């Protein structure tokens, strides 16, 4: 589904991603772990199409198309979703309107019929229940005045509503208490599907207790330095990121 080949990215004149390879097949859950500054969030932003990230080499194909050539909204319509580490507050824009506009804009770009408000609300109510979000959030402005946990759950709620093919979760676990973490994990697990893939970007192993990944990668200094099954996350938790750096040096020597 997603194939990243020797990706190199520069941000503000500084090389952040330095030759990253990654392949994710439909139905798989991949986790990318790594220390602060390794380039984890940069990867998420580049895949979603944020401006200011200069791709200096390599390629990203999503279902056979050149993802990097698409505008952010076209990537969304193609089925790529990024759950933000810091969801943006947008005062003045009604949450329900935003969600429906997003869903229908995607459907329109895909040549599908737009949902009317009855169909849309039915879908919204189903997804809200899964995440234990209150109806009341729908009537507020997008993310405005939401608690940290509400913002993160709102991201997962949007994901549930938009039903992407590839969902990238950028540190969705950070700042969540255990109950909120479980709700988020439940929301993600409920969406696991042979046709859908997930890329979990996280600093901590904790999230992976609840969303069990198929593959775990360690990202350090802009490259994937180690890949393995879920036990790799446990080893990291035990030994810390310094352990990876040492192994990398040993391998290089």
């Amino acid at each position, binding site marked *: 589904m997603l194939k990243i080949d020797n990706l190199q990215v520069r941000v503000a004149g500084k090389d952040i991603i330095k030759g990253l390879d990654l392949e994710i097949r439909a139905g798989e859950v991949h986790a990318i772990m790594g220390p602060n500054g390794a380039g984890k969030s940069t990867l998420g932003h580049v895949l979603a*199409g944020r401006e200011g990230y200069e791709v200096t080499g390599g390629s990203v194909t999503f279902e056979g198309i050149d993802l990097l050539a698409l505008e952010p*909204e076209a990537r969304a319509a193609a089925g790529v979703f990024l759950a933000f580490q810091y969801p943006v507050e947008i005062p003045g824009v009604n949450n329900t309107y935003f969600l429906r506009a997003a869903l229908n804009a995607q459907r329109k*770009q895909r040549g599908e019929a737009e949902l009317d408000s009855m169909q849309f609300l039915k879908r919204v109510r189903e997804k809200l229940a899964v995440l234990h979000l209150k109806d009341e959030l729908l009537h507020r402005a997008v993310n405005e005045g939401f608690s940290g946990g509400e913002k993160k759950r709102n991201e997962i709620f949007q994901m549930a509503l*938009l039903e992407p093919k590839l969902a990238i979760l950028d540190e969705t676990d950070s700042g969540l208490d255990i109950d909120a973490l479980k709700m988020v994990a439940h929301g993600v697990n409920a969406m696991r599907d042979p046709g859908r893939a997930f890329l979990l970007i996280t600093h901590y192993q904790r999230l992976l207790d609840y969303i069990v990944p198929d593959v775990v990668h360690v990202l350090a200094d802009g490259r994937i330095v180690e890949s393995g099954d879920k036990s790799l996350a446990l080893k990291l938790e035990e030994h810390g990121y310094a352990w990876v750096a040492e192994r990398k040096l040993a391998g290089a020597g």
Partner: protein
Amino acid sequence: MEAPLLDALTADPPAAAVPWLGQARAAALAALRRDGLPDTRVEAWKYTSLRALAQRRLLRDDAGAATRPVGAQALDGIDAQAPRMVFVNGRFRADLSRLPDLAGLTLRSLADTLVHDPEAVRAAFAQRDGGVAEAFARLNTAAAADGAVLHVAAGVQVSAPLQIVWIGAPAEADLAWHARMLIELEAGAALTLVEHHVADAAHAHLGNLLVRCVVGAGATLAWATLQDAAPGSSLIRRSEATLAEAAQLRLHTLETGAQFVRHDLAVDLAGDGARLVSRGVFALRGRQHADTHLDVRHLARDTACDLVWRGVADERSRGVFHGAITIAPGADGSDAQLSNKNLLLSPNAEIDTQPVLEIHADEVKAAHGATVGQLDERALFYLRSRGIPAEDARTLLTQAFCAAVFADVEPVALRERLLARLGGPDGALA
């Protein structure tokens, strides 16, 4: 400044039915002929040049306004059931109006009042002269022959919003109209006004509206203005209000129309505990120019003003905002808040903003801030990352930026009308 405009407009002043009016008109005319129009060396006109306007030769008044046909579409968006006073090119039109029959509420046209009860408006014509900066007020005194005279008796609470509709209609040639609105709320009265400026069809008239307003002790005036005048027209609007003890004035203003707009709002908080709330938005495009000047004076104890204005300038438009608050000696316990945020959507647009705070009293609370910025790139990316096309995302964020100002407008129907004028689809704006 050489001003063919003034030569044309002052050549043949309207006859005055009563001597004091004749004197007031003559005095204003003499001052006008002596000082002319302000140029940009006059501080209050620093960012707004009258050069182009001054060169125009406009007809003085619309002789055909009383019978000029107006298309039904001009009254679209105006609540058909609610009471209203309608003016065409500055002239009151009884045939288009719907006057309520409510004890304690008096609505008359100025023309009618000047004939039948001139003493009722004498004080309003005998007010101070603000110098060359207020040249258009002088012109108004010299030439205004019609307008609205509103009076609400003590303790009378008028619940239905009253609509004042100014329709600009094309005439044989472009013209200038001068109208005056006089509003008085006696103690404990309450009134809601919704003022519309709309166009019947394309024209390039100059409207010159002067409003004088007295809000009595404990009275409340809520007033919304939706300015959507013809794209080629000019509108000079000066509002002066005096608030007595514990009086409240709540103003909501949305300026989207006209080519050239100057809006002066001068409010005196003259009685203890008087309170002004002003919320406004100007949203400009093309080569529009809009200049808003607020001048609030705290003259008594425990008075409050809360001013929140936002501006948007796109394409080659230019916005000017000047917010002045003065807290006079003895106006202790005053609370003054002013915020003006602006959004520039084009590298060729310009917004000049200047908050001015002068404090001569003790124990006051005062804060002001002004910013000029661009759309939040993070918010734009967030919307696009969810599938909303870039152009739609920009429009939505711009509308939302403006809508925040109208969050607390009552009644809800009025709020929805303001939001609709911002161009947002139903339900888009929170």
